[in-house]
């Protein structure tokens, strides 16, 4: 019989999800940006959990059921590096032997470096849904670098080896299409979450059985914004032009507008567009999520503690009191999640 037992029921899990939802609302939004050829994109994104539940199953799994993620705020800033548009240059006096003797000067319609950016506010307009099942597993990490060190020495010795990093790199390196630099940076980014000292660790992992992230709704506002994205760009470009000459400037900008429309016109059904064009990105994201969840499931524990466990830390030169904990086990059943261990 285990000497320490902790059980958490399904309702507590759901309360924790609701608490996480409330907590998410207080988290400042994330921001970032990137460039893709002539396009640049910046974003400010925050998340709200607006629904969903967690079930514990009789098959020993944690089931995330239809967690609704609303993106708020969601502000995209799309930028475009415009090509130079010049007019003039007509030949006034042609050379009868070919070429031109006199031309009118060319004038650039734009300033020195034409680019434009427009903010698109899609806050509270897009909802996606996450469902999935995970098993909870635990294992003991024993580092080779620990060697014959006794527990107290291992506890106070910082892990300076590359053992965890190399292990992570090996696991991430199995993703077929990732370049070596990306493998290393992904693996290295995860190392600090796990690497501490040379003591043994009990680690708990959430292992993905299946999961699904899909776009489930997009409001009319967002549809309208997305459908008219190229118009918004065009309006932004033409904003400084007096209305009386807008028509002729539009004609000159037709090549740019055609290019914009080719990239940004999504047809009548923006949801379809998101499900096809951008959904490709979501699909990619989903694939990456699958990979990340899988590899994080193998590498980064959601919780870990030292073994032996430092029950009383170092004080005034005295060694910490380390209590060995063995027979750690986790069980999920219909009612609750139970973790147990023996203090030996």
């Amino acid at each position, binding site marked *: 019989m285990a*000497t*320490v037992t902790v059980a*958490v*029921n399904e309702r507590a899990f759901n309360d924790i999800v609701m*608490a996480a939802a*409330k907590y998410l609302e207080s988290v400042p939004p994330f921001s970032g940006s990137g460039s893709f050829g002539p396009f640049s994109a910046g974003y400010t994104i925050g998340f709200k959990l607006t629904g969903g539940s967690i079930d514990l199953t009789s098959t020993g799994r944690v089931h995330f059921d239809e967690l609704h993620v609303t993106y708020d705020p969601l502000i995209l800033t799309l930028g475009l590096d415009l090509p130079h548009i010049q007019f003039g240059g007509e030949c006034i006096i042609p050379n009868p032997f070919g070429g031109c003797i006199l031309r009118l000067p060319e004038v650039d319609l734009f300033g020195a470096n034409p680019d434009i950016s427009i903010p698109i506010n899609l806050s509270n307009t897009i909802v996606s849904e996450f469902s999935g099942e995970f098993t909870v597993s635990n294992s003991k990490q024993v580092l080779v670098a620990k060697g014959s060190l*006794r527990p107290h*020495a291992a506890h106070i010795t910082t892990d300076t080896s590359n053992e965890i990093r190399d292990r992570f790199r090996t696991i991430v390196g199995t993703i077929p299409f990732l370049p070596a630099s990306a493998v290393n940076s992904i693996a290295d980014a995860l190392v600090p979450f796990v690497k501490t000292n040379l003591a043994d660790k009990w680690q708990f992992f959430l292992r993905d059985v299946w999961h699904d992230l899909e776009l489930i709704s997009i409001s009319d506002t967002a549809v309208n914004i997305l459908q008219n994205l190229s118009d918004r760009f065009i309006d932004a470009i033409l904003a400084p032009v007096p209305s009386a000459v807008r028509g002729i400037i539009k004609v000159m900008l037709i090549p740019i507008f055609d290019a914009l429309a080719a990239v940004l016109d999504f047809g009548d059904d923006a949801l379809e567009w998101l499900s096809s064009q951008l959904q490709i990105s979501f699909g990619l994201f989903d694939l990456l999520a699958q990979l990340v969840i899988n590899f994080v499931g193998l590498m980064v524990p959601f919780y870990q503690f030292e073994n032996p466990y430092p029950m009383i830390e170092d004080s005034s030169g*005295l060694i910490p009191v380390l209590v060995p904990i063995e027979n750690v086990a986790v069980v999920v059943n219909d009612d609750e999640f139970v973790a147990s261990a023996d203090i030996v």
Partner: protein
Amino acid sequence: MALTDHCDIFASVHEQSFNNIVLQLQAQRPSLFNYGTMTFASHPELLCNQTIIKRIDPEVEVGVFDNPVVSEQPLLAIPGYSGPFGLEYCLQLAELSIDFHPSNVHTLPAALAPPLPEQRFSLKGRACAGLNCPSTDLLIKLAPNERAFSPVIDTGTHRQPARDPAGNPPKDAPLVTQTPTRPFPFNREGIICFCLDLFAVLHLEREGSAAAPIISLRLDNLEIVDIEPVRLENAVECFLKTILIMSVLPKVKLALNALILSVGKVLTIGPTPISAAVPFNPAIENDQIKVFVSLTV
């Protein structure tokens, strides 16, 4: 039946865990359990109870990190003696264990009316003490050479009280005037050891108002085994009981409201209220202490 049928989070700790932690403490922080004067501090092998000393692995952990095995204490002063000598002694808490209902770790003495009642737990402590007793010859040799007492017969003539020419204090001065700094030469054969076993039965009790409940520790009974004569035992037990009830246990009170944690201002974690389904919280049963916790978003 699920462990969390009547709460959100359930935690239990078996008595074995507590007792194993005590063993780990004895092995890794022995100075909490062993006290003694200079010779005992530098020679733990002279302590009365060697069981807990052998549990320490001085070559590996405590030794490597140069942690003390014994907390050094000052010499024991000799009442009425004002010289430099003091007695060497040691004191050990050789055993400390807990036994949650039902009783199966301790064999309770008859005075505690076994078996252990429900929702009770017993504590057993074994205290060992030792005194390094100098030989009588040595004591005589080192005893101070005081002036002979000269009785004064009152003949009715008033006189000033006799004065000690060496400036020694008068007889009504405090008994000890100098902190001892020198031990008597240590006599290994002169160590006199004895151990006392102490049992106490306790339970947790809820008090305070419904809005501000408090958990306190209540002493039900206490027994020191085998002190003779019986009246001495009773007196010592009475003294200890008085100390525990009047001084120690009132300080071991836990305001349950203090246990209510607010996580990120969104999740409140607190003890599950007492009800028919959860009559005791914490509960002491099945050799465990069980805690029932509820969450509120």
